[in-house]
């Protein structure tokens, strides 16, 4: 709940932003954690939840996707397929040993034979609920930023406009949220793949 993760789709891409703080009880362990994991070259997963489950779940999903691709003659899984796989794993685990993570999966799918590609953003909670959305947030950020998204979002945003909206959300969290989250990392996915747009502090090695 304490992790801030939000995402927004725009014309040609998806951006996911997350805070970089990591701590427990009254201590902050680090301020440069990267909570947005790369799944494939064209998809990423922003994660809110325990660090252990963040690492174990994202690596489990991305490596299984990779395994599927190399076992099936390079067939690429669409973002929709990746999100449904992740969702299935969360749902299976919930009554055994739950992964306590709430995630946003964003990805770009190239069009067939030169047709324009499409972007998608999926909201998954730790029970395994799956919902395709145009914008979204996880954790307490939902309470602070939902109204900002609702007001500012429109179809076919440009990348600059999308970044601006996320900037407003980040500022709102810094202003109103009681936990200190000084650093945010932003990543985008578009036709050129996953790239880092900005970060507050250079992310730590994993």
């Amino acid at each position, binding site marked *: 709940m304490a992790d801030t993760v939000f995402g927004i789709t725009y014309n040609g891409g998806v951006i996911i932003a997350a805070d970089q703080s*990591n701590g*427990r009880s*009254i*201590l902050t*362990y*680090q301020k440069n*954690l990267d909570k947005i994991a790369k799944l494939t070259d064209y998809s990423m997963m922003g994660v809110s939840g*325990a*660090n*252990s*489950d963040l*690492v*174990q779940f994202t690596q489990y999903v991305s490596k299984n996707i990779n395994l599927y691709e190399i076992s099936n003659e390079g067939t690429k899984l669409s973002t929709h397929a990746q999100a449904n796989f992740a969702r299935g794993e969360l749902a299976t685990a919930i009554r*055994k*040993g739950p992964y306590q993570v709430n995630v946003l999966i964003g990805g770009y799918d190239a069009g067939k034979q030169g047709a324009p590609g499409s972007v998608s953003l999926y909201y998954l909670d730790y029970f395994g609920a799956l919902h395709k959305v145009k914008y979204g947030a996880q954790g307490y950020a939902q309470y602070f930023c939902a109204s900002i998204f609702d007001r500012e979002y429109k179809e076919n945003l440009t990348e600059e406009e999308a970044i601006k909206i996320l900037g407003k959300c980040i500022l709102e969290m810094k202003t109103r949220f009681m936990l200190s989250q000084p650093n945010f990392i932003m990543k985008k996915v578009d036709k050129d793949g996953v790239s880092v747009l900005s970060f507050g502090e250079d992310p*730590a*090695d*994993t």
Partner: protein
Amino acid sequence: MPSQRSPPPLEFAHGTTTLSFAFQGGIIAAVDSRASLGSFVGSKTTQKVLPVSSHILGTMAGGAADCQHWIRALKKEALLHELTEDGRRMSVARASRILANHLYALRGYDLSVGTMIMGYDDHGINSKDDHDTRSSTPYIYYADNTGLRIQGDIFAVGSGSTFALGILDTEENRYNLSVDEAVALGIKAIRHATFRDAYSGGYINVFLITPKDGWRKVYTEDIARNPEIWKALQTEINENS
């Protein structure tokens, strides 16, 4: 699922202060030596720095038995790695990941482990494939019983950690300290933590890891026998007798 209607929790050896930080001259690990069973001091002479390999150390915080067992298991795997991989030492990242994966698998079983796995290996920046050349990038990983594993330049773990961090974080220019100054900083931080934290005390032990020579113990002091404190105590004893 584990932990349903389990017997009442056992009393562990819990309270501690351990810290480590990287600086230009290497990695410092400083620890206390008190093992507390509730309010009883179970041991004044616990070894809270546990070697994993010639160039990697682990620290103990939380349940003493859990830490000792799982870091010993890690030491075994690191040695096996060296023996089967043609003398190449296990990297700090791999060692910490092996431990973190064990702890993640056992996360419903009420283990209590908060450890720092730190050292040098052949895999950092400026390293070459020839395994006689050591990389000079220090690595410190914090791993705990929740399965958390994170890398950083400075950590403090245990009931006295916040007191130690107060000393460490307010040292300007920490990276550029000389070896003597860095050792002194580690001592100061542990001493301040043991002063304020009831569950830390005993001896201060400080270790230094360098890329060339691996780890060695560089300082040990019985806090109770600290000359100033001892002198004050003796004066008091003499006055009262």
